[in-house]
């Protein structure tokens, strides 16, 4: 009798474990299917990062590269989204741009998922959702929400200390999977370093003149609503920030430190001819003070806990009373991106003319969903 009971409970536990494994396994596998994008008619061709560095072939990070080439010759701009796949606005802006933009002069290259591997997992212990959805006039469009870092399944184990090459700068071991600590990258390094190397090769081979790396950060991080620029791009950055201020969009200028290595705004500028710009918006789900963690928090950006922190006045945080909704974060990035290019054009460089991108107020009023395809 007792023996039978034991068998029954063991069987129940086994079945429960199998059911949980199947459900979570399916969820996990689903995050490996690539997202579908719907490029605007302005798309002239696509490529892959492995076109620039064959070592990425067959890896999760052989990301797709989209080209929009104008009829008239001009400068070349690179837009990188998804360096950190937990910074939703970054990847979303790249999608919005590639699904709308028309280039009349010069070229625009978009990599919407710079660290694709990071989109297949979530950061542990954060209770982050796997997806978030943007409402569009024709239904919801779902996007992957990922991890700041390359998936440990694609790059493992982490060393105790990450030693950046070639500077020798030492960081915590997990930073070895942080794409924005890996530049200029190495052809014989980790997957993250190879990805960084591929991107730098692309910048060189395509003669990119201006490059953007989009990010978001927790409201309590001091570098927020900011444009970080390499010293050689200072004039462009300051002119753009001045124009943005005229429109009522406050942006802090931040000069890239020369002794902090592995970051796009430093190494792209040091190792190539490009003018690099890194831009940050405020994303409450990344913050330590947030409460309930949900997909709504990514999209609506409303956190009562951050509001309390704001009202206490004790902290310097980038959080507005009404929250930090995705519309405003996307609108900021799109507008900063445009104004930097305009400032670059105005300073006598060979121009790049992008058309059909929404204005700041348009995005605030109509929502991001008005500018992306509903999808399936």
């Amino acid at each position: 009798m007792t023996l039978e009971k034991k068998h029954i409970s063991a069987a129940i536990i086994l079945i429960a474990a199998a059911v949980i494994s199947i459900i979570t396994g399916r969820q996990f596998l689903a995050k490996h299917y690539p997202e579908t994008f719907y490029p605007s008619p302005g798309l002239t061709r696509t490529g892959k990062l492995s076109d620039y560095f064959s070592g990425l072939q067959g890896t999760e990070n052989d990301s797709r590269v989209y080209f929009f080439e104008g009829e008239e010759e001009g400068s070349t701009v690179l837009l990188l989204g998804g360096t950190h796949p937990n910074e939703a606005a970054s990847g979303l802006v790249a999608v919005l741009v590639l699904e709308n933009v028309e280039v009349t002069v010069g070229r625009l290259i978009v990599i919407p998922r710079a660290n694709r591997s990071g989109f297949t997992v979530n950061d542990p212990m954060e209770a982050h959702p796997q997806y978030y959805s943007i409402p569009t006039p024709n239904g919801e469009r779902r996007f992957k929400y990922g991890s700041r870092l390359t998936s440990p399944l694609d790059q493992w184990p982490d060393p105790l200390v990450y030693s950046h090459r070639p500077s020798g700068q030492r960081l915590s071991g997990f930073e070895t999977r942080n794409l924005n600590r890996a530049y200029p990258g190495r052809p014989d390094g980790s997957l993250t370093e190879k990805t960084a190397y591929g991107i730098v090769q692309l910048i060189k081979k395509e003669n990119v003149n201006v490059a953007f790396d989009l990010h978001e950060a927790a409201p309590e991080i001091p570098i927020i609503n900011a444009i970080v620029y390499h010293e050689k791009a200072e004039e462009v950055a300051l002119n753009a920030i001045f124009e943005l201020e005229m429109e009522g969009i406050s942006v802090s200028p931040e000069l890239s430190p020369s002794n902090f290595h592995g970051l796009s705004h430093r190494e792209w500028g040091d190792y190539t001819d490009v003018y690099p710009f890194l831009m940050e918006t405020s994303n409450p789900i990344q913050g330590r003070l947030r409460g309930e963690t949900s997909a709504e928090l990514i999209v609506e950006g409303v956190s009562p806990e951050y509001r309390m922190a704001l009202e206490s006045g004790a902290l310097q945080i980038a959080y507005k009373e009404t929250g930090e909704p995705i519309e405003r974060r996307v609108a900021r990035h799109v507008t900063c991106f445009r104004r930097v290019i305009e400032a670059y054009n105005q300073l006598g460089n060979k121009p790049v003319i992008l058309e059909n991108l929404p204005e700041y107020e348009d995005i605030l009023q109509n929502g991001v969903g008005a500018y992306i395809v509903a999808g399936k």
Partner: protein
Amino acid sequence: MRRVSMIAVLMIMVSLSSFPALAQDKAETAAECGMKFAQPVLISSAGQSADVKLVGMMAKRMKLKAEVKVMAKPEDLEGMKTLIVVPGFSAKGLGAAGISQKDEMERVVALVEAANKQEIPILMIHIGGNARRKGQSDAFNELVAKNSKYMIVVEQGNEDGFFTELSKETGVKLETAEKIPGTMKPMKNLFE
């Protein structure tokens, strides 16, 4: 009963007169108080935020005879008639300059003291809004505000009346602008 209401009215009047926004309305602008600063101008930072570069750009657009030295030292004051200091802390900026917060504070104290000693008036221009307030910024903000002859502040940085209070405490004139480009007009008035 009448006495109670009289006291209430008096209390309201007293509190209104000390209300920062109203006090600010009464503050004279550069043009009204006739204060003038002379050129050439040395523009430096206090806290190494890149805001100082934006002020430099505006000075250039106004064709002021000005030089931006983010790491200005007392000897850079030679031949200068005005010192503009743009306060605001930036960890990235300190990294770019390769110095610590303590080094920066010592540099600013030395620069401000030298300017005071040589009777070179200091004009404070705070344009960084919230991003250059509280945290590690306010020590720089306060030091510069207290040693200046005039303060131009973008409103967002004074939402809590921080600079208004400092102005009342020290008698240093404060003029606010809604946005960064709006600081050009008072700057221009001061140098005309």
